[in-house]
């Protein structure tokens, strides 16, 4: 490899004014790529969550997606008439399942998705404000509202945990639904961390002077979180 040392001034990482490395523009470029790569990895996990749902639902192993077959058919027909067939339809503690479990109330599921969509919308508005040279007073309240809605989504998700008409051990539907809720909360907590940081930094003027790129990147992440939450909500409501 031929190299030249002509005319390319050495600009040390540790000499720039834009943080650890480089200028804000260069940081923006790197972090922009990184956010999309992170979303790619997260999307693979998300797709596998959907795969789990539909695979288990389609298989309905031992009639235990929601325990439906335990009432619709005789236990013997479910298990192929084997001698242990009567033990098939049991929950995780060995108690017999005698009925199809109820699904989670769609109102809660959809409301949680709506809250996080609203949170993402506020972050989006904040980005628009920041891009247009909005002041600290213009951007910060929007980010603050975004954080408030994320907190509301977390609280509602926890409430939904408390009032579900089933427990984790009652079959594959219950398991997968609660896994989705856990996944939602993990996403929301991440969004809360990012959102709180944005809000705080905006409050002390870190995003003035055209340094709005972190708001932009966060908006991408928030939209992804809102999108994935909405898809999970629709899947659980439409394909229970």
């Amino acid at each position, binding site marked *: *490899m031929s190299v030249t040392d002509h005319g*390319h001034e050495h600009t040390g990482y*540790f000499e720039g004014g834009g943080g*650890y490395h480089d200028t804000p523009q260069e940081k923006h470029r790197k972090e922009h790529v990184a956010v999309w790569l992170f979303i790619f990895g997260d999307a693979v*996990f998300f797709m596998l969550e959907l795969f789990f749902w539909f695979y288990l639902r389609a298989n309905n192993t031992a009639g235990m997606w929601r325990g439906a077959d335990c009432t619709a058919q005789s236990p013997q027909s479910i298990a192929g008439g084997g001698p242990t067939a009567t033990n098939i339809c049991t929950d995780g503690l060995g108690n017999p399942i005698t009925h199809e479990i109820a699904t989670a109330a769609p109102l809660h599921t959809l409301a949680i998705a709506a809250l996080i969509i609203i949170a993402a919308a506020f972050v989006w508005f904040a980005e628009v404000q920041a891009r247009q040279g909005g002041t600290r007073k213009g951007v910060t309240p929007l980010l603050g509202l975004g954080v408030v809605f994320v907190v509301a989504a977390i609280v509602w998700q926890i409430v939904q945990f408390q009032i579900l008409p089933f427990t*984790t051990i009652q079959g*594959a539907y219950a398991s997968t639904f609660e896994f989705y809720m856990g996944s939602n909360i993990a996403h929301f907590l991440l969004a809360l961390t990012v959102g709180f940081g944005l809000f705080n930094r905006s409050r002390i003027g870190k995003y003035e002077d055209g340094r709005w790129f972190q708001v932009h990147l966060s908006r991408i992440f928030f939209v992804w979180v809102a999108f994935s939450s909405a898809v999970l909500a629709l899947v659980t409501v439409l394909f229970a």
Partner: protein
Amino acid sequence: MTMTAPLAEDTKLGPKAGGLYRHQNFATGLIVGILSAVIGWVISHALLQSSNWGSDMVVTVTLVSWVVGFNIGIGSFNAIFRWSLGHDEDHEDQLYGAGVGQGWKRYFKFCTDHKVVGTQYLVLVMVLFGVGGTLAMMIRTQLLTPNSQFMSPETYNSIVSIHGMIMIIATIIMVSGPFANFIMPIMIGAKDMAFPRLNALSFWLVVSAVPPILGSFLLGGVPAGWTTYAPLAVQAPPAMDAFAITICTFVLSVTVAGINTLVTVLTMRTKGMTPGRLPIFVWGSIIAGGLGLYAMPAFLMAQSAMITDRVVGTSFYVAMQGGTGWLYENTFWIMGHPEVYVILIPPVGALIEIASTFSRKPVFAYKVMVSGVIGIATLAIMVWAHHMFTTGWAPTLADPFMLTTELISIPTGIVFLCMVGTIWRGSIWTRLPMYFLYLFLFNFIVGGITGIYLSDVPVDQYFHGNMFVTAHFHYTLLGGGMIGAAGAVSYWYPKMTGRMLNERIGKTAFWIIAAGIQITYLGQFWEGFQGMPRRVANYAQIFQHANDMSSVGAYILMTGWIVFLYAIISSWRHGVKAPANPWHAKSLEWQTSSPPPLENFLVDPVVTSDPYGYGEDDLAPQRQPQPVSAEAGSTTGGAH
């Protein structure tokens, strides 16, 4: 041309530089980690009101607390807290974070310099290989005689599981850890990785992942094999929780590292470093990074669901409650087969660098070779079910998966032929790295060809459950991957340590290793042809000769690795000082000092030709590359 004085390691910083980092190191990580684990244990124990100190819930909470606590203690999360509070680091904080003025202590801290992280990874990999290798020796000792009482079958099963997973972890990071961190940024003319703090985070996450899996021996062991198939793993002792937590933590590390590698290459190439001029090792690193980004979430999903099945009673994998073991197997192998190429592609990239440098020839069919590696990565995500031919899952899909598996031999063959084409009729300089290249070529043929047998459904029905498979993947991952890593160590050792690796000891180690591999794994092929099942602690008398051969070979192999380790350690302390470019190579990492200064180059390099421009007048290794003016070649496409 303006030059900037390099930042010396003994630069004096202010007394407050680094902030909290000044007080954090490996010891504080251990202390906070252990305290967190104890607190987690007490709280979970109290909340559950359980008399069983080792229930799944208690073990899980305790070990997660350890991982989080250790990383808090060492400083992994300082940056995100500071960012949230708006307290950005200043210039001196950054210098402190990069290890300036800390000497050897920076290797025990949350250091952001990519060269420190690369060195940390190298040492960690050697430690993991030491642990995994010791377990392998215990396995082979057990198998010396048909009804050995060296250990109980339960202990044997656990050792097989832990050996397998530790080796998988070690091989995933054996090249992408040390060399993609230390060497790759220099190869593209960057001053560091794109996200230095994430780089350090990825390393310390792996460190925090190790104690849980080692501790699993104290928690009843993991009797389910390294693949930990459900529902066997769901019923395993609490050690399985530790195993799964190790994997989840490791997945986070690999994901962070993969993103960092990709962003570094995509955005930080120096001027003139166009995609067509990227060294093959860089291509290998980003392709492996991207493949890991696809594969590792599947591992996280598989093990997360495993943990919830065990801890909170979900039923993903328990058929009686609506789950299915096939779900685990699919998810595991959706990760598992791409992961093989995450392991293999970086060492192959390193060996191609070696082939070109020591043959004094350009890489043969550069674009074809890069296409071949991309082809391997693409097909790697379409072959997972060949691991499940014998499980009974979806028999109608066996043929398509057999086809895709056999197809992958085409790009693999292309890469192999390009490697041979590179050294073909070259002016070969036979130094230690070339020895490893030759050994790789031999071993990889054996491992690759036997892989084609296993892709064939009828043949797989016979071989899948026996030692033939064990021999096949050891030829591939050890004979191919680890030998490639050993080649990479011997090639880049002068750059990393500033000293030459002792070739006499290195070649002695090489011959012992080469012999050990053949004796060990040809012995296992023999066992497989005889029909000996794998994963058994005791076996029939007819298999003894083959097992004795394999065990003796394993002792020889271990001896070889110990000698190689001795060469590494002794040369690090007493080796001859290395010049900047001992191999007279043309890629960018050799155009700076050994070891490179902080930020790597005194002057930002501008690349004007490809890294393999060994012309016909350049057959003699004595010739040094000469800088040429920027006007002499293209300087387009750089990131800066």
